[in-house]
């Protein structure tokens, strides 16, 4: 959380995360260069750069895309979600180097504008097997550029989390374009069953994880609580909620988190105002509900971020009858004070 917009709000964890990213990328590039020179001494430096950075970008994109579903399936993976933005920007830089070198190598020797040349050097747009694959890569790079340049809280706040999220869901389109770019480009020239198999496996892994997580979430969404005569929903017993933790329930299609703090219960909307993190999967730290994704905090009794921060989420009224917790499904306005109830 920050009051003003800085390029990067550095902390020890982010620095360690970034060091790991940089080290992994440099190691991969060194190994790729050495192996390329050992196995094919005639390969030009430009070709090695194009292949090294292209393959690096694809590997990083796979890593980025598995983080989301992994954290939804197992919260132990949450630490790798914390600084995913930097991984995304690093991936874009690798893809950019691949794109720039490819354009220089293949499209700058003629009289045409290089960008125009990408779109017109192969006009077989009606063919599926001979489709101009470089166009697909170029469009994917454009999407990644938009995403990398808006990967900052300034844009998140000013575009609104809803629009920002929609914009960043374009990564799925970029991923599809990139996979097709490789299949219609590199794999047409070097028909390596191993490389094709690895990329297919990557696609199956990512798609499988996303769908598994989606179906798991669907089960939570289909939770139906029984109503009492006043329309309140019975969600659990008081003993089912651990101290400083929450249980998540679906109420009227939306999720709410019922927290226990110092023996008292409070309920807030489960979605963090920052990037939509699941607040109910976080815990109470120093009296504040702390989002497990990026550490945004809210007070349990009013859903407001502690001053001077201004984020607010909806709150809900609770009651306990014979050890059972009931939720009033009609939410209060964001930031409305609700007195916590004793268990």
């Amino acid at each position, binding site marked *: 959380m920050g009051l003003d917009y800085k390029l990067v709000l550095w902390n020890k964890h982010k620095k360690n995360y970034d060091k790991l990213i940089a080290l992994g990328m440099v190691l991969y590039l060194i190994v790729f260069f050495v192996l390329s020179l050992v196995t094919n001494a005639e390969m030009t430096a430009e070709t090695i750069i194009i292949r090294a950075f292209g393959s690096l970008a694809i590997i990083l994109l796979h890593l980025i895309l598995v983080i989301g579903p992994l954290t939804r399936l197992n919260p132990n993976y949450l630490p790798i979600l914390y600084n995913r933005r930097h991984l995304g920007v690093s991936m874009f830089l690798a893809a950019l180097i691949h794109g720039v070198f490819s354009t220089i190598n293949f499209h700058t020797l003629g009289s045409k504008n290089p960008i125009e040349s990408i779109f017109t050097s192969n006009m077989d747009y009606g063919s599926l097997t001979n489709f101009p694959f470089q166009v697909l890569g170029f469009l994917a790079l454009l999407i990644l550029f938009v995403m990398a340049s808006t990967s900052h809280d300034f844009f998140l706040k000013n575009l609104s989390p809803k629009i920002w999220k929609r914009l960043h869901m374009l990564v*799925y389109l970029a991923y*599809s374009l990139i996979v097709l770019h490789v299949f219609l480009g590199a794999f047409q020239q070097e*028909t390596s*069953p191993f490389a094709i198999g690895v990329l*297919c496996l990557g696609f199956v892994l990512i*798609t499988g994880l996303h*769908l598994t997580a989606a179906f798991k*979430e669907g089960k939570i*969404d289909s939770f139906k609580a029984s109503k009492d005569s006043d329309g309140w929903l019975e969600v659990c017993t008081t003993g089912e909620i651990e101290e400083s933790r929450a249980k998540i329930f679906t109420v009227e299609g939306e999720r709410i988190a019922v927290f226990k703090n110092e023996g008292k219960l409070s309920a807030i909307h489960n979605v963090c105002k920052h990037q939509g993190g*699941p607040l109910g999967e976080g815990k109470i730290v120093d009296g504040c509900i702390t989002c497990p994704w990026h550490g945004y905090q809210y007070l349990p009794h009013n859903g407001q971020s502690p001053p001077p921060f201004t984020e607010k989420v909806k709150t809900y009224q609770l009651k306990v009858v014979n050890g059972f917790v009931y939720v009033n499904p009609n939410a209060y306005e964001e930031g409305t004070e609700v007195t916590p109830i004793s268990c």
Partner: protein
Amino acid sequence: MIAKQRKAHKLVWLLMAVVVPILLFFAIKDLDFAANIKATETTEQFKVELVKDRTILITLSKPLPSSSSVLYEIDAAGKLGKVMGQLQGKGTYEFQVSEAASGIAIVDKIKNENIYTTTF
């Protein structure tokens, strides 16, 4: 995520799980995985690869020092046959060898020197 976003994610991945594999299948269905390199010979200045369907790939890492480098087919009798082309600057050259050829030769026609010969 809110409920609408979760639903949108699920729909996007269901769509991708169906559409992308179909496109990938059509992208590689005509690939010939057996079209790998059958033989390779490497000299200091160039590499000659024989791939399937009697295709020859010659990769020059730098221009040949000879003033004329003409590529010939070698006929069944072991003599120079059809002219296939000329090697000039560095790069990869692709030639189709006829069924009757028993090999190829690179010849400097000005000095009338044989630079390289290989038979299949």
